[in-house]
């Protein structure tokens, strides 16, 4: 699973800590998701999409091996 969290953060000029505050998780959790080490639940993915004012599909995309 790849994601565009870093790009979306850059658009909003948010740090990982800013995003973490917006969606109510720790900065370490944001980092783990952003680097692809952890795949978030549907609820968290939707919360992220809401924070970035985009759809989940924009944030997360399946890769060929998924």
């Amino acid at each position: 699973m790849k994601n565009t969290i870093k790009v979306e953060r850059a658009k909003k000029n948010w740090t990982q800590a800013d995003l973490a505050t917006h969606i109510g998780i720790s900065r370490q959790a944001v980092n783990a998701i952003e680097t692809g080490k952890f795949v978030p639940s549907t609820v968290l993915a939707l919360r992220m999409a809401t924070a970035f004012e985009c759809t989940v599909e924009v944030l997360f995309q399946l890769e060929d091996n998924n």
Partner: protein
Amino acid sequence: METTIKKKAEKRTIITALIWGVTYLPIIYLIKHGGLDKGVSVMLSVIPIITFIIYIYSYIKQMGTLDEVKQRIQFEAVVIGFALSLLLMLVLCLLDVAGVLNDKYAGFAYLEMYLMAFYFIGLFIARRKYIV
């Protein structure tokens, strides 16, 4: 609001862990070296059990306040800890059957420390996996 709940839960877990430590260590010492009656020793041993149950209850409640990544870390830490504990039991069982088990290093007090160490090993491995 959410952060306050998390901090409160974390604080409660730390406090209950300290209370358990404060009750457990002196009572162990007292039971071992106090020359107490068996009945009194048994009665005293109930105290750290109760404080430990309170600590575990707070710990489990705190798990519910953690975010998904931290919950996964705790879950994996427990899985690794449990697997290592089973491995240790297997080794001790085999050594016991073979008649070469040295009770000096395999008493319940040591087992307790090993199991705790296994949890922390699991926590270390899981944290390395998810947190940079």
